[in-house]
């Protein structure tokens, strides 16, 4: 089974995770820019982080045969921080033009503040300008109202619904999104927000159209194998190979291909690694010659 992991914060993971993901069938990951667990106090740390996403992280993933893509954006938590918010927004255009940047994100609401809304809308405009879809975080508290307000904003600014991936859905928010045309993301966690059993129950109830599952694996308790585990759960409940592949491979690819920067033929090849046989570099040790 080929797997496209559409939301993974790989900067927080060790190489063992990449190896396990590759063994479980993950061939591509998309890493959305988010906060890093602790507030950043100046724009430079954002830029270093963005540079790392398109630089070292892409290289690291390639060692395990995994294609690394990302989404760039000012996350909703730090959209509230006047030390960084405007300056990050100003720097985004160059990052939104990078190869491998397939979306703006994560953007959206966290506490549903005025500042969050201002930078959410500004970044939807950037998405339009740079021809990118939008990966949208939704609040973990006051979830239903947060999702509803997200959908209202998308409608208000006439953002094309099929170019929006509204993430972190639950049983309660699916009915809100279902008929709007947005793609529905689900972050499968070890024991809190959503798990693979509930996830497959949701699919049985509402279908698999525009459903995108991710592990969101980050610096908190999380599991980078949650998408393969969801696929396994689907198989146990009798889903066909094609249906499983639709959810864990084609759906995320169909969504992110709207960027015009995702070459499906490239996905069939192993990612290029320059200087693959570098002898001195420990991360390459044991591979190749």
């Amino acid at each position, binding site marked *: 089974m080929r797997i496209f992991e559409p939301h993974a914060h790989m900067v927080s993971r060790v190489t063992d995770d990449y190896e396990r993901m590759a063994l479980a069938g993950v061939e591509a990951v998309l890493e959305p820019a988010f906060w890093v667990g602790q507030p950043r106090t100046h724009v430079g740390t954002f830029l270093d982080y963005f540079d790392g996403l398109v630089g*070292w992280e892409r290289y690291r993933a390639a060692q395990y045969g995994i294609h690394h893509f990302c989404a760039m954006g000012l996350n909703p938590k730090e959209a509230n921080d006047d030390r960084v918010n405007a300056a990050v927004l100003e720097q985004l255009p160059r990052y939104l033009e990078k190869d491998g940047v397939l979306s703006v994100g994560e953007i959206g609401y966290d506490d549903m503040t005025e500042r969050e809304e201002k930078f959410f809308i500004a970044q939807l405009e950037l998405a339009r300008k740079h021809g990118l879809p939008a990966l949208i975080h939704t609040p973990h508290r006051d979830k239903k109202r947060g999702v509803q307000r997200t959908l209202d904003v998308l409608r208000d600014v006439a953002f094309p619904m099929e170019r929006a991936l509204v993430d972190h859905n639950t049983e309660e928010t699916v009915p809100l999104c279902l008929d709007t045309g947005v793609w529905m993301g689900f972050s499968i966690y070890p024991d809190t927000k959503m798990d693979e059993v509930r996830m497959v129950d949701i699919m049985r109830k509402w279908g698999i159209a525009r459903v995108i599952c991710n592990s969101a694996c980050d610096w908190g308790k999380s599991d980078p194998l949650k998408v393969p585990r969801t696929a396994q759960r689907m198989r146990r409940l009798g889903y066909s190979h094609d249906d499983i592949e639709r959810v864990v491979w084609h759906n995320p690819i169909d969504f992110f291909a709207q960027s015009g920067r995702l070459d499906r033929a490239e996905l069939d090849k192993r990612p290029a*690694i320059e200087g693959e046989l570098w002898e*001195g570099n420990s991360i390459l040790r044991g591979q190749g010659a």
Partner: protein
Amino acid sequence: VTDLDATLLELIRAAAPAEGVEWLQGALAGVADGTQDLAVVFPGVARRVGRGGLGSGATVGGVPLAAWRVDDAARAALLLAAARRFPDGAFALAVELYRHGDAREKTGALRALALLPAAPSDPAGLPAILDAMRTSQGEIFEAAILDNPYASWHLPQHEWHKAVLKTVFVGQPVDRIVRIDERADAALAQSLLEFAEEREAATRAVPPDIWRIASLHPPRGLAAKLLGYLEHPAPEQRRGAAAGLAVLAGADPRLRPFLDDRLDRERDETVRAMLRTQESR
């Protein structure tokens, strides 16, 4: 538009899709007249012109293009256009694009340095080269040090030694370092010899292309070591040793009988040719 711009564009035209060339020409005009921001144009170059090999064995402005890709050439052309607009800030601009670039952008910025106006005399692009020397990403290091005259023009001797050593360490050919014969010195030769000893102690192979460079300013004991390698079963090891010995024999006629002794038994034609040569120093 200078000869250099025209040459680059001609090479790009031969290797890039027509719509990519058209896009590039629009971007070049926009960067030249200030209507487009190079920082925003630079990242998307490879998506438009491609990222395959440039396919040129030419040397342009003293820069060998053999390892260049199409996007490297397009990014160099864009930097040249920006350099005409900001003649005093061209190197700072290249360094800035390097710093915030992905791997392809970084190689483009590094390779463009040697083509910028006043490149042989202006060291302002060095911060990018020095940064690239610290990376573990092969293509970035390669773009900074191999076939890049800018690094060889401007790196201070200590840093230049380290660049040569890292080239050897990562298994790249030292002969791709521009002006290596000119800049090699006794300290470099000593470092290369110690590197070889470290590899020998670890029972790992020694890259044979270091011996000719070490022989330009030979440390004591080198001749004997190379005579040993001349008996190595692997022909590439004998070629490396013979290349060094050809240099050493030019200054030390006592080596001649040993080379002739090997010549009698040597089957590899390349090694034989080297053993007959006696380079003068």
